[in-house]
């Protein structure tokens, strides 16, 4: 029945992307009288504003308006889940780069030059900058949480083997190629339209209304596409949009606010960095009986989305492994740095890096093949199929998927080849690792698992589709259009998707948590099916067969041996005064999660995958190359294999960047010094191996998702944990002792880990 779904249709904007005619926010035709806004950033990480004189700013050439905290007519806060993110610092500054005031002027140059004329006096306060500082001072943005199963203390004490240790992993800048931007246009009667580059138009609408002192119905937020987002435009897009709207309201003129790359990287949040302590008990085979994790994450100056992110880290501290007795504690540290936020994986990657580290440590302690230890700990048959939070792992395919990948990637042979290479080479060393992914799909805040859509059929038979999701490059619009095309039996060209707008579909959830196509695809399918059922009624009467026998295929409506074109049936329906428009609504079924006890079923299902990575390192400099990658990934029944493979490859490379070359570096005053691509290094083409093999694992979703597909946005990012472990493996071939390699595993960290192991050898030799 699917003529379109399941094909590798090209991205609906591909022909626009390649011509430069796809419009991003800064490309929109500029309305008459447009002003350009600039945000003045705090030069200090922690300070009290003791005096602020903006008069010289206001009277500078070209300036039309200046606004600071006292000028906000509504609520001076854009915190998404709870307050804590002031639009303008209200007197207390809590990170270097925090928004202090904003200027609107005839040009961005004039706004910027004017802002430099501000006279602000700061009383400096001692900042908390690191997780260790925050833990020492017990500074948290949210209360710590604990997830417990069984009796971990007793089981740890009784375990035949026990290991404990510490690891750390860095944060990550989203580095969407299109920076944050918004254009606010005032309308009549105080209404305002905000064009945003946002994953969450509804939140921009609501926060704009709240800041401007308006009702939600007076604000429209519209998003055609984003030039990348990755979670960085979920809550972080609001500040920019709201400031543009405030200035538009104040001046009565359209205002554009576009952050340049440096301001964007300084002002907006990133992935949380984590510090993990672990204590694990296991038997001689490496099978874990008990584990205790102590997570501490750097949330920055406010809660933002940190509650759900840290919850998800706890939910993924098992990855694909059965942890019979588990204690998982999570501290949400407050620091005087930018508030960390959603980033592809949303805490999941951090939890999984932690458990994969433990698996590797166990294997090296017992001198076992790491893959074997992993396989022995996979979820299995009951009772070894329940997560620490009490959810049963229904379609547990990890073992089968990993076995298949190990075979197709020739893991065993290559493991032997790596050992042979290392024996033969003094200074160049290789490493290989296979790591699995099991990732929970659904927003853990259950209420967010809902979506709406709006479908119109016009009398020429063309279909206009709108849904609550946003397009950030992931191909969501293409997938949803494919689903709708199939409902009507039309070619994809007959279905058009327009900009996401709060006017068409209200009260939407962010396009996040990999949920875009699951939720919006289903809602759109429901809307289209409502119209199709009406059309089937028309055809049923015409053809004299029951409506259930009417088929929509190849642009034809058929039944009982008769058929008419889709357009003809549409026109008949119109003449019969039937509605050719419908909304659609979907909510994920079966979720039952108790946030208090952190138990139940927070996820609809799991997406699975596994990757083998191989690296070669230079043990004199720590430099390395990723030489081959094999991935087998589960997208359920893929809606669009080309788009899904694009998500897998892109997610993997983004994850590899996080764990290798992407290093955020703050100085002792809390200033981010890696705020541009000259200093912050995301992967380039040459970092991706020429030998990069990606395959889809054919596995229809056991849950009734749209076309039995699975979400694919986030899970592949965590396939890149295999790169970190391949590097660990290579480091482990030198010297002895623990592999002290934290992430990001920059060449520096790799070399220092090697030097540490070499010194262990030297110490051992000296002791003899």
């Amino acid at each position, binding site marked *: 029945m699917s003529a379109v779904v399941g094909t590798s249709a090209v991205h609906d904007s591909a022909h626009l992307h390649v011509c*430069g005619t796809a419009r991003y926010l800064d490309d929109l035709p500029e309305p008459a009288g447009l002003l350009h806004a600039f945000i003045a950033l705090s030069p200090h990480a922690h300070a009290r504003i003791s005096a602020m004189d903006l008069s010289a700013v206001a009277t500078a050439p070209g300036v039309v308006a200046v606004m600071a905290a006292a000028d906000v007519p509504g609520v001076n806060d854009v915190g998404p889940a709870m307050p804590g993110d002031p639009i303008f610092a209200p007197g207390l500054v809590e990170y270097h780069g925090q928004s202090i005031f904003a200027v609107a002027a005839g040009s961005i140059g004039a706004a910027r030059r004017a802002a430099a004329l501000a006279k602000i006096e700061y009383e400096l306060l001692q900042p908390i900058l690191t997780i260790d500082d925050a833990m020492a001072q017990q500074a948290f943005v949210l209360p710590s949480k604990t997830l417990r199963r069984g009796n971990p203390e007793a089981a740890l004490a009784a375990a035949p083997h026990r290991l404990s240790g510490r690891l750390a992993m860095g944060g990550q800048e989203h580095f969407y*190629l299109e920076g944050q931007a918004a254009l606010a246009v005032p309308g009549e009667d105080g209404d305002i339209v905000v064009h945003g580059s946002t994953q969450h138009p509804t939140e921009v609408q609501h926060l704009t209304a709240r800041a401007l002192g308006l009702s939600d119905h007076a604000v429209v937020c519209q998003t055609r596409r984003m030039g990348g987002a990755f979670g960085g435009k979920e809550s972080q897009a609001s500040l920019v949009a709201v400031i543009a709207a405030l200035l538009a309201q104040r001046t009565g003129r359209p205002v554009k606010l576009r952050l340049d790359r440096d301001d964007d990287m300084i002002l907006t949040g990133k992935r949380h960095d984590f510090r993990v302590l672990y204590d694990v008990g296991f038997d001689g085979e490496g099978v874990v009986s008990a584990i205790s994790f102590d997570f501490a994450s750097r949330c920055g100056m406010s809660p933002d989305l940190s509650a759900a992110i840290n919850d998800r880290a706890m939910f993924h501290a098992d990855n694909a492994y059965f942890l019979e007795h588990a204690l998982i504690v999570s501290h949400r540290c407050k620091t005087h740095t930018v508030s960390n936020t959603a980033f592809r994986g949303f805490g999941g990657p951090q939890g999984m890096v932690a458990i994969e580290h433990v698996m590797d440590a166990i294997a090296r302690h017992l001198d076992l093949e790491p893959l074997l230890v992993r396989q022995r700990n996979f979820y299995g048959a009951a009772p070894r199929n329940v997560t620490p939070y009490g959810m049963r792992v229904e379609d547990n395919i990890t073992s089968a998927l990993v076995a298949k990948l190990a075979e197709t990637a020739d893991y065993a042979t290559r493991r032997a080849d790596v050992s042979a290479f290392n024996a033969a080479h003094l200074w160049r060393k290789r490493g290989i690792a296979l790591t699995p992914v099991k990732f929970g799909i659904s927003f853990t805040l259950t209420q967010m698992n809902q979506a709406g859509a709006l479908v119109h059929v016009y009398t020429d038979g063309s279909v206009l589709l709108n849904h609550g999701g946003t397009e950030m490059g992931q191909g969501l619009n293409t997938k949803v259009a494919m689903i709708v095309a199939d409902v009507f039996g039309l070619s994809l060209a007959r279905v058009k998707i327009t900009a996401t707008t709060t006017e068409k579909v209200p009260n939407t959830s962010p396009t996040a948590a990999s949920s875009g196509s699951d939720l919006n695809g289903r809602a759109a399918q429901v809307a289209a099916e409502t119209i199709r059922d009406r059309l089937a009624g028309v055809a049923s009467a015409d053809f004299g067969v029951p409506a259930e026998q009417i088929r929509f295929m190849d642009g034809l409506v058929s039944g009982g041996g008769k058929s008419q074109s889709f357009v003809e049936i549409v026109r008949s329906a119109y003449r019969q005064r039937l509605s050719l428009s419908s909304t659609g609504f979907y909510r994920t079924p079966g979720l039952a999660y108790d946030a208090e006890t952190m138990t139940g079923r927070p996820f609809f299902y799991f997406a699975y995958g596994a990757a083998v990575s191989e690296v070669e390192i230079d043990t*004199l400099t720590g430099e390395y190359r990723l030489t081959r990658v094999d991935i087998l990934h589960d997208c359920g029944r893929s809606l669009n294999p080309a788009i899904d493979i694009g998500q897998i490859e892109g997610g993997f490379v983004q994850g590899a960047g996080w764990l290798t070359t992407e290093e955020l570096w703050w100085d002792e005053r809390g200033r981010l010094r890696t705020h541009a691509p000259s200093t912050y290094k995301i992967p*380039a*083409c040459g970092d991706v191996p020429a030998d990069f093999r990606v395959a889809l694992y054919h596995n229809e979703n056991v849950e009734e998702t749209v076309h039995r597909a699975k979400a694919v946005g986030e899970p592949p990012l965590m396939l890149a944990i295999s790169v970190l472990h391949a590097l660990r493996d290579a480091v482990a071939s030198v010297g002895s002792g623990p592999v002290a390699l934290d992430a990001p595993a920059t060449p520096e960290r790799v070399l220092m880990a090697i030097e540490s192991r070499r010194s262990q050898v030297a110490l051992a030799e000296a002791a003899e």
Partner: protein
Amino acid sequence: MTDARDSVSFLLGHAPREIRGADPTMTVLEWLRGKAGLCGTKEGCAEGDCGACTVVLAETVGAGLRYRAMNACILFLPALDGKQLITVEHLAERALHPVQQAMVTYHASQCGFCTPGFVMAMFAAAHTAPVVDRGAVDTLLAGNLCRCTGYRSIADATLDVCAAPVDDQFTEAEATTLAVLAALPKGPLALRHGGRRFWAPDSLATLAALVEAYPEAVILAGGTDVVLWVTKQFRELDAVIAIGGVAELRELTTDGGVLRIGAGVCYTDAMAVLAGLHPALGELVRRIGSVQVRNSGTIGGNIANGSPIGDMPPALMALGARLVLRRGVVTRELPIEDFFLAYRHTALAPGEFIERMDIPILLEGAVLAVNKVSKRPDQDISAVCGAFMVVIADGWVADIRIAYGGMAGVPARAPAAEQALLGRPWNEATIRGAMAAIEEDFSPLSDMRASAAYRATVARNLLLKLYLDHAA
């Protein structure tokens, strides 16, 4: 400059344009997006590191057109003078250009924001030299960042469409384009914008006179650094002298065992010659910036800005290069290591500029090694860059020159390490001695690129690497 022009003339696609009175320190990107209404060229970073703003400049070279990808964000407007500016909007005519079609066919765009830049980099390549393998793709696209795709699809599209020269409307129109370019006004530029002045002389003598007359003026070569002073540091440059039009500074000659490279020679033009001198130099240049940056940036500029982390100075020190400086009609020579006095402070006197560098050709039997160590292999700035020239005679170190970048406020020789090697047997014990001696030469700093400890360790280990690679 009496008969200088006061406007910039170029082709925008196929249409002649003349810009008069514009701010000469406006970037081509700002002009395209803000003035010309061509928003296909994107701003990703405005510092030449992401390639989203890649455009192509075609110019007459010999009897044909030469196409080069450039970052529009680090190109001042006058750089367009006499050239054809091609942007992504000019590629598709009746149908998608083959490069664009390949990007669609291979599903090589996701969010699409970086895509125009990739398309233009590939377009330039399709008009330049065949891209034959993945290594060539990696080099070609090192200056274009994509955050969505993971590059595999883009690399596949590139290998497909850039494997052979593309015939397109630009090839067809080549004769016309050459004629139109030839008809554009020629000669030096003297631009004014308010109180701001911008000169682009077309002879060495005029350049020397201008620099002497306006010693405070900023000398602009490729602009890969100077443009950032305007776009990132928001400095106002009120007097700029561009050297790009001076033919004498673009000369590249070999004369009596010395390679002479004019200060205006861009990396791309120097790359083949340097690779011919020694493969290590070719590889070093390949890892400096990206295609786009090398098409603009000059070795002379890399030296003149006095950066501690420029990659050419250590290699040039190891080679024993000398600089020829000019002030008016007077020239002087000095060894390159004497040029760098302190952090961002050079031996250039007011009114003086670098005319060229003279690089002695390596002696028979001399070993040269250059190791650039950075966080990311491609298009990154060095944590440490070490360059070594050693002559081994009968198992003894007969000559040695060692220089490092990233280890001090200036690129510098390592005299203690050299002393520990010179006249000693070429063995591991000697090398270990030199490794220890490095500590006397340098006290590196910690910053966002590397810690002091890492820099010191790498500096030592690069000596060991030199020995291990050339032990025999």
